[in-house]
């Protein structure tokens, strides 16, 4: 069995080469390469990322030159940042009319932003577990068994990567929109909103739990947003698991079975501990993509305010010239993406440690 390549970087440095083997142009090459890399990545990644937080906290460019301006900007910017998400209670009846209007609209905006955050979290709470189950099942079937059409199955998993997010949204409109194939059925169907599950007592039926909020139709409702998000994010977990499980083979599971473990016990005690880091990584990628998905969701959301997810809310705020609010919402998503990166580094380290432990055991 071939061992997987370790994730740690092997030290291959031209500047470590002995002097007589080093080419005279190596130093120039290093100077050019390093300065280009630093400048390019700063311009393309660090500055744009920093700019999100600069705008979110309302820090002007002038404040980079004068510290007193910076202090002033931050003092004004931080409360405004939080007001994007929650406008403090104030008694609006004593306000003058234009101020009251302004206050009430800011309150309404903050409410919409909060509902967008709730919508994003709710969609992720539905999409990620479903894709997790699929990823585990697909990886198990593909890596532990040989069957006809296996290669086709694996390449079908990758299919959503080839599809533009907008096309991913379009196919659900084609299927379940008013003029779609299942249009007659899909525009009439009612479905319960999961968050409206509540205790209703035994008066109505013998099941005390029930939904108080039902929605009609699929396209242009959160149902379609969840479907489109599933479509766009479903390869991530399977993709993270398949190479790893392929390398691990089936010997350990077979040993567990011969020692008398049941199927589920074998899965939870043998397989799951081996793949936990890859599974976590795939889940996080899936979550990050699901939370930030824009194209597919904007097709099926119908651009009504209650259906907004965070990226759609960002677009609306930006179109209303509410730059600071748009960047404030964007800053939350930026934090999620930075956390994803950090977790990826941690997980790669853990996976490398797990791998080297195994190698030591083998020796």
């Amino acid at each position, binding site marked *: 069995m071939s061992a997987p390549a370790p994730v740690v970087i092997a030290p291959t440095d031209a500047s470590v080469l002995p002097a007589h083997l080093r080419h005279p142009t190596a130093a120039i090459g290093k100077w050019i390469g390093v300065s280009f*890399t630093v400048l390019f990545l700063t311009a393309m990644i660090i500055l744009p990322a920093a700019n999100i937080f600069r705008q979110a906290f309302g820090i002007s460019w002038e404040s980079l030159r004068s510290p007193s301006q910076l202090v002033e900007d931050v003092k004004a910017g931080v409360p405004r940042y939080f007001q994007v998400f929650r406008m403090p209670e104030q008694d609006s009846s004593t306000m003058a009319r234009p101020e009251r209007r302004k206050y009430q609209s800011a309150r309404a905006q903050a409410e919409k932003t909060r509902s967008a955050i709730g919508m994003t979290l709710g969609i992720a709470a539905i999409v990620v577990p479903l894709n997790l189950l699929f990823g585990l099942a697909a990886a198990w*079937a593909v890596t532990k068994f040989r069957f006809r059409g296996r290669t086709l199955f694996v390449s079908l998993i990758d299919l959503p990567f080839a599809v*533009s997010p907008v096309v991913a949204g379009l*196919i659900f409109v084609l299927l379940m929109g008013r003029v779609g194939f299942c249009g007659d059925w899909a525009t009439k169907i009612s479905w319960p909103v999961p968050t409206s599950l509540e205790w209703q007592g035994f008066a109505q039926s013998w099941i005390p739990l029930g939904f108080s909020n039902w929605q009609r139709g699929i396209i242009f409702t959160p149902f379609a947003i969840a479907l489109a998000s*599933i479509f766009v994010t479903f390869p991530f977990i399977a993709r993270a698991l398949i190479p790893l499980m392929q390398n691990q083979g089936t010997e350990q599971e077979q040993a567990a079975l011969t020692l008398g473990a049941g199927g589920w016990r074998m899965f939870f005690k043998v397989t799951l501990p081996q793949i936990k880091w890859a599974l976590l990584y795939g889940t996080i990628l899936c979550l990050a993509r699901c939370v930030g998905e824009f194209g597919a969701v904007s097709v099926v959301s119908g651009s009504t305010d209650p259906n907004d997810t965070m*990226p759609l809310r960002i677009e609306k705020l930006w179109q209303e010239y509410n730059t600071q609010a748009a960047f404030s919402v964007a800053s939350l998503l930026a934090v999620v993406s930075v956390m994803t*990166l950090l977790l990826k580094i941690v997980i790669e380290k853990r996976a490398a440690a797990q791998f080297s432990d195994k190698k030591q055991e083998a020796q």
Partner: protein
Amino acid sequence: MSSRPANILPGFGLSFGYASLYMSLLVLIPLAGLGLKTSNLSWDQFRNTITNPHVMAAYKLSFSAALAAALLNGVFGTVIAWTLVRYRFPGRKFFDAIIDLPFAMPTAVAGLTFGDLYGYVPLLARTADAQPWTFEIYGLYGLDVRDWCRVTVMLTFVGLPYVIRSIQPILQDWDMETEQAAMSLGAGPATIMRRLIAPEIWPAWISGVALAFARGVGEYGSIIFIASNIPGLSQIAPQLILDRIYDPIDPEKKIAAATAIAVVMLIVSLIVLLLLNGLDYLSRRHRA
């Protein structure tokens, strides 16, 4: 990898059944709907939709900017991957880590901040000119130059990790002794590049460029924040699809048009990915 004829592991029926059911319901059947809708279109309808000047302009913008961005990434990505693997400098691990940020960052957020940050750079700036600055060269004729540059810069960001992450492992596993042998035999850096390193990394390089291209063609979220989205001048193909879907006049016809536009995009991405698989197969056979 076990190649035992009799597999005693349980759960094949359950896992395969569940996975294929899930995939069919959520991915394959909806995608098949796209094909079905297209086959309902007559050839004339399809051709008329595709050859509409706005649609042609959108394709030109989407494909040319995605190609330019992929090639830019091919060049810059090679330099960056080389630098990260071969040289030690302060902050190397940090720069290595942030390369994945374009994968993790939502495209809408990226577009928002790029538009804000680079909206004032001369070549990229939004202007209130009545007369747009358009391309005069064949192939891109009539597209807005500034918007084309903006879209290209954005797509360069979006596709940044692909080339780097595909050639980096090869450069890392590269055996330096071959290179030292070549050097001691009198080969200069250019010869080593051309005769030793280039043959080793080109399949991965092409696959990275192709992935960046396929990603760029379909990109939507970031572009709408930075391009002016004027039909025929600076509108990308996905934006056109969205416009057709939300067009209230004659929805049936408009959705059919959106389908035709989408099918062409999908076919191009699928061809690129198929070529990629073929290339992968060839290079593997070449090595074996």
